[in-house]
């Protein structure tokens, strides 16, 4: 009787032990499998989110371009046309007015105003839709931009490029042009610089743009982490435009002043 009692307990211990071991194995297995699955899900979700953000950004940039095109067209068609007509009328008026009269003075002032308005409208139109870009390519368009800024006498621009006159795809040229435009605008608005150096070199695979000003520089970190959504946005825009070119954009503000922006792309373009 004692024997069977013993066997009973022995069996119980054995069953208990095997049971616990199986449970432990099951838990571990479950854990490993489940954890992997959850992680995979999480990664997929993040991937989707990143793609969405990218798409949104591109859509917004595209709509910006569309707006600009529209405004440039309206400027040219409506305002430009009217200005031409005003100019014609003014020229005709000249015949009917005696020189050295008050009216003649006012007419001269009007002619000056018209001329400056025409210049402004042209400048705005060019900024919005650089016709030179389409017709003559990126280098010429940038050259023209630099010329215009040089003429304002606010600062000097030294533009250097080392590119055979190849052309990038139209969208890429426009993107790069916008980046450079934005960089000029930022410097003009914030940097209080007196000189800008711009170096552009590209071919279908590589891209190198170095933009340097001798202004006050800025603190990249504070700008990027700024709670004010508009402040970091300009930087983000530049970075995402660079991304569209499959290039990387980096800032460098050395302690003794100035700002240097590098846009680099190495290797094959992946469509």
């Amino acid at each position, binding site marked *: 009787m004692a024997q069977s009692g013993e066997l009973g307990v022995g069996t119980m211990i054995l069953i208990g032990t095997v049971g616990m071991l199986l449970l*432990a194995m099951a838990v571990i297995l479950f854990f*490993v499998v489940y954890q992997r699955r959850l992680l995979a899900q999480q990664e997929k979700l993040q991937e989707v989110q990143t793609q969405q953000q990218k798409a949104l950004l591109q859509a917004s940039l595209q709509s910006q371009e569309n707006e600009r095109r529209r405004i440039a067209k309206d400027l040219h068609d409506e305002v430009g046309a009217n200005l031409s007509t005003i100019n014609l009328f003014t020229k005709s008026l000249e015949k009917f007015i005696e020189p050295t009269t008050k009216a003649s003075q006012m007419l001269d002032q009007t002619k000056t105003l018209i001329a400056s308005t025409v210049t402004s409208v042209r400048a705005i139109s060019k900024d919005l839709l650089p016709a030179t870009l389409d017709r003559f390519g990126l280098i010429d368009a940038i050259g023209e931009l630099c010329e215009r800024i040089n003429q304002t006498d606010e600062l000097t621009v030294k533009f250097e490029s080392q590119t055979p006159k190849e052309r990038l795809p139209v969208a890429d040229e426009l993107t790069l042009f916008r980046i450079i435009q934005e960089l000029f605008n930022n410097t003009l608005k914030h940097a209080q610089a007196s000189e800008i150096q711009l170096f552009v070199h590209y071919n279908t695979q590589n891209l190198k743009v170095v933009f340097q000003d001798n202004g006050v520089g800025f603190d990249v970190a504070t700008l990027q982490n700024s709670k004010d959504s508009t402040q970091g946005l300009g930087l983000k825009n530049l970075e995402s435009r660079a991304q569209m070119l499959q290039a990387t954009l980096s800032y460098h503000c050395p302690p003794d002043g100035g700002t240097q922006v590098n846009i680099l792309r190495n290797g094959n373009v992946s469509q």
Partner: protein
Amino acid sequence: MLISIFLYTWVDALIDITTSSTLLPALLALLLFKKQNAPLKYLSYLLWVATLVEIAAYFLAQNQIPNLPLLHVYVIIEFALLGWMYQLYLYRFYPKYLIPVIIVVFTFLSILNSIFVQKIQTFNTYARALENLLLIVFALSFFYKLLKELKVKYLEKKPIFWINTGILIYFSGSLFIFIFSNFLVKRLALNTQMWIIHAFLNIVHNIFYAIGLWLSRENSE
């Protein structure tokens, strides 16, 4: 007769292996001590204590001196060290004072048990069983925390994964054996069988510790 002699020798070998199986992780712990993060250091302390206890137990046994009192002390130390290792991993996820309180209470209960209930010459089955249950709970809690936080990508490269698995397997497998150890000690055949199972579990769990410690050399935590 022949079978029993063979069994005895084989078991003898197994006992030697299981006793020395603590050496491997203990050595690794010694070599890689500097590279370990704080929780793993507590595991290292435990391994060294375990090795010392095994050596002491062996010599006592050779000299026919009862070595069970060592076990009473060892259980308290083992739980405190492993518990503290878990505390260092879990204190942010679970209430901060939970594990330290459990360690203190367990130590207290274990001492009470050794003095009043299961005197020092018997197996302290109550204490051991409780220790096993608590460590199983800690191991499961750790897995739960890993699932909830989902920070780790390659689990099998993390030392703590292996150590935790080893702890789970060993302490759940040996639970029933420990509960019944006082019963078993009077019945030789059954006792031998059970302790063979325990020996395997012990070897497995030390191997897992060793794997875990080996991985800590890359300082992946």
